[in-house]
């Protein structure tokens, strides 16, 4: 028991978990907005984004203080470094959700609805929420095994592939709506990026627990 460092690390971990919660809420709001076809909910996401950004700053400051004042080593050091990277990834995730929400806020009309539904954004969001649950469990229990299957998962890639195919078909079918379809397809790319960021977070968890660097190896 290190009586000075441990409370600091605990506080840092709590903030990290809270940030994951915030992202999860943002995802849930997006889904609600999508399902209920409610543009006001989409607007509330834009406000939620501010809290995500604030939390990233808090975590960054926490990490800086711990490094400067407590000189952590080994697992502690890796945890602090990993947390910095995870908070960065979470913040970027938030940005992507915000862009998605902006689109919904501007384009969630009756005449676009059928097209939007075809791209199955809700299935992406469901998957992310499920993953974030695992991430939280893993951080709380210091158990990296929970997230290893996420790192190996190829679901995002498959979803993206089918979306490409779908977009090609839709463009042929609705040449008058090419612009909307392309924007929707771009949003799928955003979703894919969120997926890879959550995967990065999972890799950081494995790094700080096991000191193994999975990045750039696992995918080869």
């Amino acid at each position, binding site marked *: 028991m290190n009586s*000075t460092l441990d409370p600091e690390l605990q506080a840092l971990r709590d903030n990290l978990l809270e940030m994951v919660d915030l992202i999860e809420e943002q995802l849930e709001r997006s889904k609600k907005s999508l399902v209920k076809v409610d543009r006001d909910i989409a607007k509330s996401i834009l406000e939620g984004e501010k809290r995500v950004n604030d939390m990233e700053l808090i975590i960054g400051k926490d990490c800086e203080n711990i490094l400067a004042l407590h*000189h952590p080593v080994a*697992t502690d050091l890796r945890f602090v470094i990993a947390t910095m990277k995870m908070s960065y990834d979470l913040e970027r995730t938030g940005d992507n959700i915000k862009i998605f929400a902006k689109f919904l806020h501007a384009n969630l009309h009756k005449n676009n609805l059928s097209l939007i539904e075809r791209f199955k954004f809700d299935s992406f969001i469901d998957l992310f929420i499920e993953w974030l649950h695992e991430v939280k469990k893993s951080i709380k229990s210091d158990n990296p095994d929970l997230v290893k299957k996420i790192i190996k998962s190829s679901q995002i890639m498959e979803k993206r592939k089918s979306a490409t195919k779908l977009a090609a078909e839709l463009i042929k079918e609705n040449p008058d709506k090419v612009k909307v379809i392309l924007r929707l397809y771009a949003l799928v790319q955003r979703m894919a990026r969120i997926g890879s960021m959550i995967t990065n977070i999972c890799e950081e968890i494995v790094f700080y627990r096991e000191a193994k660097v999975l990045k750039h190896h696992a995918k080869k």
Partner: protein
Amino acid sequence: MKNIIETKDVNVFYDTNHVLKDITMDIKEHSVTAFIGPSGCGKSTFIRCLNRMNDYIESFSMKGQVLIDGKDIYKKKVRVEELRQKVGMVFQKPNPFPKSIFENVAYGLHIQGETDKQLIAERVEKSLHRSALWKEVKDILHKSALSLSGGQQQRLCIARTLAVKPSVILMDEPASALDPISTAKIEELILELKQHYTIVIVTHNMQQASRISDRTAFFYMGDLIEYDKTKDIFTNPKKKETENYISGRFG
């Protein structure tokens, strides 16, 4: 780089008290090796085994081998005085002789019977240069060494050791009695000395070990728990005890 020090199954007893257990370790030439561990773990006893400074403790007995340049230093015909010229030592508290600065550095040569004044003066100057003390003391060489500050005294002790041309320098917590600036100077000096000498240092200061050493050995209760590259010890130790110790979660 070749191994300059090799120990094989070193066991040390104080009377019946088993203070070091089967220590086997290689130390590379021109490197800095740090010994860390809680008080009473045996690290100081072990470093003193490397130049037989434990010989004067009556209850001390040792089994195993300590090879320096491939020669067993505990063999009967080894001359301890020659060994100590080759393997010098710097102690925890600066301990200059109550003599002048010059005489302190020249002492090692005097006891070797060196009488060539020219040579002695040259060697003293060179040693003081190497220990980064020359600029500070060149005008007061004949003042008492006790008039220097603690940090200067410790660098004088290092200069004194350098004057007898050792190849290994053992340092037993050399900066533990010094302020941060003097400590930084000693550390800087250690990194410079590394080019010409092999340095083994006992320290209680984890940051010091991580800053200056190439390899770190963690001792606990007379066992060598882990010995590895310093980078690995401080980022990813293999043993739970090591991690607990370096992250301050001991006991």
